Structure formats: C-alpha cells, structure tokens
C-alpha cells in the first residue's frame, strides 16, 4: 500500500481570485520582505479581506529558513489565532509556513522533530494555502519541509504527509517579474525534482507520468522563461511544471543530487536550486551503471538516443548540460567561485552530510564514503563521471 497526496490545486492566469472565496475569520500570511516590496502581500491581503477575513502578516522569513524563525512565527500565530495560514513566497516561505502551522496546532512539537511517522492531528485550528512565487521547489504541494540548523550548519529534511497544503494557488502572476538568475536556479531545482522522482527507488505508477511531463515542459520552457521573462506562455508552463514535479517527488522521493546539493548548500551557502541542479548531470552519469534508474524511458520520451541505459544516461546528462549552458548555470563547484583550498578543507564535512542525508538511501546507486568524496571532487573539477 502507498499513498498519493495532493492539495486542491488552482492554477493558471488569475488563479489568485480564488482567495476571494475563502471562508473563515482570520488569515495569517507567512512571507518575506521581498514579497512585501513587490506588492504581492497587499495583493493577497486585499483579496482575503474582500472575503471578509482579518489578516496578519509575518514577513521575516529568510532564504533557507532556520529552526529559530519557525519558532518565532509559530508564536506570532498563537497570538493571532488564525483559521487560515497562507504561505506566500519561494520554497523558503512555504516551508516556514508549514513548520509554523504544525507548531501552532501542536505547541508541544519542536520544529526539528517534525517527521512522517508521528500523527499530529493537524487542522484542528487552521488550514493551509500555499502560493509559490518561484517556479522551483514544488513546496506548495509537497509534504517536505527543509529547515536549516544554523548551529550545526546542516539542512534538515523534515515533514509529514499531514502538512500537504489544502489549497495551492499556482498563478503565473507571481512569477512574471522573477529575475533571470532566480528563474534559472529554481528551474533547475524543478528539473532535478522531476528526474529524481522518476529514478528513485520509491518511484511508482502515480508519480511516473507527472515526472516525465515535468521534464519535457522544463526542457522546452525554461530557456524561454530565462531569456525573456515577459514570455508569459513560458512562465505559465514553467510554473505548472514546478508544481507537477513537486507532486511527482512528494509522492515518490528524491535521490542523490539532493543529498549532494543539500550538503554543498549548507556548507557554502549556495541557493538550493543552483546546488542540486549542479549535481544532476554528475548523478545521472554515476547512477547509469546501476541499471535501475530507467533513463532509457526518459530519453525515449524526449526523443533522445535510448538503446540502453548507458547510452540514454549519457544522452540525458549531455542534454541537461546543454540546458544549463543555455541558462548560464554554473556547471562545476569551481565555477560557483569556491576556492580549491576552501573546498578541500570542507571535503570531509561535505561527505559526512551527504552520506547521512535522507535522500541518499533511495538513490538508484548509493555511493560509499570514498565514492561520495570522488563525486564532490569530480563536480569541483567539472569532470564527467568515469567510476
């Protein structure tokens, strides 16, 4: 037995109008200063108020949010007693909203202990709306919460199926002005979700089709959205693709590019999508010999050479590198501007974190310590994987 979980998804142009039909008393928006500056908070507030709700805003979420931020937000929620929580922003705001909501419902729970095995009985006090303003993490539909333990410089993969949002509003209005760099980074995150959802060992009939379609959409529309942010057709398809990829990985899992990316991101403060996307081609090449990743299926779907797993994997890694080239994405750790000496000094710590990352175990091929170190070194130097 297994599950497929999804929010009620409202998507496309003007999807945000659904906010005017929300029934409730008080809405608590979890967001960041950029969302306030861009006028998105006012846009959402106005529509909620026209639905008769009283609105409060917590706009202090930082990128890659910390455990401490989640605790502070939950306290503010308890004071306001909302019956709707609205996460508005990139993955950071949405993850923070989920964590705060859980602690609002369950004051006895600490954020670092949120796990998929316990039952929390959420929705006694409030329900959750998620509104993504990046086309990347898919957090608007996933059960995952990524928080940073700043003391340990470690990213914590937390979450529970209960925290999948009630309503996800996937409106391209919120991404039309996304800067090109953010478009590229978050688009690579979505592509990595789609690939990893398809190849991880928990893949299933329900997630497979979503993953394939998301991969195809992203190869088609990400370069367009990057080159011309005003290309609303590309923006809308990318926004949908990120949510679809989120549904795919939330209902299967992730794999190695996320373990490596989480580790690099936590130690060198690299944005999530840039870090995980960088490792995608390397992990495709590394996983090919396992024969378990089903790269031939993906390649066939994209019309790439697919005679066998090896051929397909190399065709796919080349295709991903080509996309990265088109969107000016760094393709090695060196290209991120990390000095060799700093990298070498942190190599053990990088391996430690990647090895114990919860995404490692479901990868089609699981590296041992030595292989983890080599993966990092090859990715530093930008060398194709030959082991």
């Amino acid at each position, binding site marked *: 037995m*297994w599950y497929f979980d999804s929010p009620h998804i409202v998507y496309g142009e003007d999807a945000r109008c659904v906010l005017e039909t929300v029934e409730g008393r008080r809405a608590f928006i979890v967001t960041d200063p950029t969302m306030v500056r861009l006028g998105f908070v006012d846009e959402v507030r106005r529509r909620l108020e026209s639905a008769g709700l009283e609105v409060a805003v917590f706009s202090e979420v930082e990128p890659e949010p910390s455990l401490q931020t989640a605790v502070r937000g939950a306290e503010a929620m308890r004071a306001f007693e909302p019956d709707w929580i609205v996460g508005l922003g990139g993955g950071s705001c949405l993850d923070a909203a989920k964590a705060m909501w859980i602690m609002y419902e369950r004051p006895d729970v600490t954020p670092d*202990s949120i796990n*998929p*095995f316990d*039952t929390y009985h959420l929705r006694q006090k409030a329900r959750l709306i998620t509104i993504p303003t990046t086309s990347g993490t898919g957090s608007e539909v996933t059960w995952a919460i990524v928080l940073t333990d700043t003391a340990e410089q470690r990213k914590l993969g937390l979450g529970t199926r209960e925290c999948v949002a009630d309503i996800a509003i996937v409106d391209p209005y919120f991404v039309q002005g996304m800067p090109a760099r953010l478009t590229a980074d978050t688009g690579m995150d979505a592509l990595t979700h789609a690939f990893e959802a398809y190849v991880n060992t928990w893949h299933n009939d329900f997630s497979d089709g979503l993953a394939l379609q998301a991969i195809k959409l992203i190869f088609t529309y990400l370069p367009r959205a990057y080159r011309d942010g005003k290309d609303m057709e590309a923006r809308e398809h990318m926004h949908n693709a990120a949510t679809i990829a989120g549904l795919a990985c939330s209902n299967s899992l992730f794999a190695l590019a996320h373990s490596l990316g989480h580790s690099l991101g936590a130690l060198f403060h690299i944005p999530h999508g840039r870090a995980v996307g960088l490792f995608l081609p390397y992990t495709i090449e590394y996983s090919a010999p396992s024969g378990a990743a089903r790269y031939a299926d993906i390649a066939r779907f994209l019309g790439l050479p697919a005679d066998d797993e090896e051929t397909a994997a190399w065709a796919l890694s080349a295709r991903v590198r080509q996309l990265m080239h088109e969107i000016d994405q760094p393709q090695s750790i060196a290209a991120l501007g990390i000095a060799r000496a700093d990298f070498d000094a942190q190599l053990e710590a990088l391996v430690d974190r990647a090895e*114990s990352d*919860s995404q490692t*175990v479901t990868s089609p091929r699981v590296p041992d*310590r030595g292989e983890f170190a080599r993966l990092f070194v090859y990715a530093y130097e930008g060398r194709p994987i030959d082991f």
Partner: protein
Amino acid sequence: MAHRFPSDAWIKALCAELNASEAYANAAKNWEGDFYFIVEAGGPLEKDVWLYMDLWHGKCREAFEVTDPASKSPEFVMSASYEDWKKVVLGELDPIKGLISRRLKLKGNMNKIMRAPQAAKELVACCTKVETEFPA
C-alpha cells in the same frame, strides 16, 4: 540451517549476519540504540513474541528472545503483526515505508530513525540472508 521466525535462534542468527556485514557496519557506524521487536499475536502466534537487540556502532552486541518484557527498557520498541514482520524479513516491505504507512509502529526518537535509513536498509538486507522458516 533454517531458523523459525520469530525465535531466540532467529534473532541470534540475524545478530551474526549483522556482525559479518561490512555494509551494515559502515551504514550504522554512528548508530547507538537498542530495540524490542514485538511480533504481535495472531496467525501462527498464540501470544506476542518479544525480541531484544542491542545495536551499537555498526555491531550487534547482544540479541535474544525476551520472556519478561520488563527485564529491559530499550530506547526503541517496534511492533507489527506477524504478517507484516514476515514481509519486512523477506525484504518485501521497506521498514521506512512501513513506518510511514503505520503498519509498523515505533516508540522512541523518530528523528534518530529518520536519519539512519541506510542502516535500516542494510539491516533488512541482513534479515533476508538469514535462512528463515515461517510457521504457517
């Protein structure tokens, strides 16, 4: 020689497999924590069977069937029906999926378990190596 599941001989055979497994030793090198595995009455079992296992830094220090559950107070207590345990032992039910779907019940620090999925995977790999006889 095949060992009947669940029994003292079976858990001792698993203990020996773990201590012979380099993959397990590696995956669980930071693990500290002992377990009660409870196989609930039902099917071929007239009463609950309690198995104790002490896992410490990639090794199994001790394992036996418990007659008095009060004799130990392990950090983790994991319980499931005989049929679900059988699936775990045969490698047909991923224990992490079993926990998420509530077919396996666990008392103890969940986060510690969540951060040791590779150790859980290697532990199951060792289970599948134990020559096991399942009473009908």
